[in-house]
């Protein structure tokens, strides 16, 4: 049953060095506040799982949290490269990063298999692609009914999945709406689930077929308003595209990146303070 705790407590209690951790959210509802808290608590040797690593994993990789990355598309959407992700793969800075690379359809199928209690996922995939040559987890299987050769990949079962959602009720039932991505599958595939939410309400007011994670599949709910920024929370705030574009400059140089992260993320107490700190600097530089 979900308990309502601070993000600091949830991260300290449920995420340990060496864990496999999935922070999901497909462009929408990316749990930035939770990623920052793991950076602040200096988690190490994590296996980071995420379809689209995005800025949050760029930050976590650059701050040395990750030993391994399981993913399917690692870019800054609409902007370009993730410089810390690239640097880690190309030069091993700040730590060597092992990668396990899949396609989107495969990652989605792997989470579904994990959520379904199956050992592997089956799909039509990777025809003619070089990816299976470099990823031993992509195998083939013969259909026992038709004889067709299909692709098989193992289920994903993260130690912890971390999501951001619009709201929870006081019991800890969680409502997610808009682009729901892979969130439900990531939650149900995981051993433990942390959800940060914009707000806690008396009544979720969810429609009959809404995407609701019942309180009894959620370990902890943490209230973090704005916790998906610079991603967005549909109905609350828009994606901060200007920040995503600015990130290209912040992340390009190792030392500049480190200084920025130490100052605004590690050097602040929580996400609210981080927002004040980073936005104050952005204002100063835009007036220069």
């Amino acid at each position, binding site marked *: 049953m979900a308990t309502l705790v601070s993000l600091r407590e949830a991260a300290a209690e449920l995420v340990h060095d060496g864990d496999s951790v999935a922070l999901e959210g*497909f*462009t*929408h509802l990316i749990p930035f506040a939770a990623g920052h808290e793991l950076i602040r608590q200096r988690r190490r040797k994590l296996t980071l799982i995420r*379809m*689209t690593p995005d800025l949050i994993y760029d930050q976590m990789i650059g701050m040395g949290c990750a030993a391994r990355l399981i*993913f*399917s*598309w*690692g*870019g800054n*959407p*609409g*902007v370009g*490269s*993730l410089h810390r*992700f*690239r640097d880690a*793969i*190309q030069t091993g800075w700040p730590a060597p990063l092992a990668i396990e*690379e*899949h*396609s*989107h*359809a495969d990652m*989605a*199928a792997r*989470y*579904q298999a994990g959520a379904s209690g199956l050992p592997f996922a089956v*799909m*039509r*995939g*990777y*025809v*003619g*692609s*070089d*990816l299976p040559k*470099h990823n031993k987890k992509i195998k*083939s299987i013969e259909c026992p009914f*038709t004889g*067709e*050769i*299909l*692709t098989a990949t193992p289920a994903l079962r993260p130690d912890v999945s971390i999501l951001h959602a619009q709201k929870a009720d006081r019991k800890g039932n969680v409502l997610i709406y*808009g*682009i*729901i*991505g*892979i969130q*439900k*599958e990531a939650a149900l595939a995981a051993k433990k689930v942390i959800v940060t939410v914009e707000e806690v309400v008396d009544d979720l007011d969810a429609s009959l077929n809404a*995407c609701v994670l019942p309180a009894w599949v959620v370990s902890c709910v943490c209230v973090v308003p704005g916790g998906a920024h610079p991603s*967005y929370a*549909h109905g609350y705030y*828009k*994606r901060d*595209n*200007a920040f*995503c*574009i600015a990130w290209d400059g912040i992340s390009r140089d190792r030392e500049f990146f480190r200084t920025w992260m130490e100052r605004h993320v590690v050097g602040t107490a929580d996400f609210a303070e981080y927002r004040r700190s980073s936005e104050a600097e952005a204002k100063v530089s835009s007036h220069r």
Partner: protein
Amino acid sequence: MTIAAARWLRNGGVCFVGIGLPSAAANLARLTHAPDIVLIYESGTIGAKPHALPLSIGDGELAETADTVVSVPEIFRYWLQGGRVDVGFLGAAQIDKFGNINTTVIGGSYDAPQVRLPGSGGAPEIVTAAKEVAILLKQNRRTFVEKLDFVTSSGYFERGGGNGGAQVRGRGPTTVISDLGVLNSDPATNELVLTAVHTGVSAEQVKNATGWELRVAPNLEITPQPSASELAALRDLHARTAAAHGSAAGAE
């Protein structure tokens, strides 16, 4: 290039759209000759009708203007793998003469690349599950290469036998639209052949911008110049996009 790509899309078809150039062209088609085209983005938005171009594949406006929003496993399993997509509309970093594309690594090896690119995203399954695929990219000797550094998504695959046969549903990449012209795969050899040049571009120019010995179709066509209404629609779309995201965004 955007206009030539938009023209290639038929009204009423179902199009699985990549971000960037494909998204710009697909929305231009929707705003001009193809009002009933169904645009699917891999974030799970089906029938998206954005007012401005999305910066990311999962912008909120895609959800707000969609006929329905489904989960990511559903979009790939029921809608793509289920065979409900007519056209895959994709970009790439590199392409070879058989329409194989690379979005993974440039130079070095896979384990120690010179440049690490974002990776595959949805492409490996889009190219095999969509009934037909068009690839959009700017043409020069670095992008149109004799040999790819990595095959992320396959262009031409052996059909009717071997491991690939049963998994392939569509015709694969039949068309490549660049800033210089249009290439189509020759059904006999599966090789991309130059079939049209854009107005003001010569076949020689396109050959010089291609890393392999490019064949030119005997009946080479010239892409008609953009009409005033097409240019106006594209200009308006970019203006709305700049207003929505700040300058530069979407002006690819």
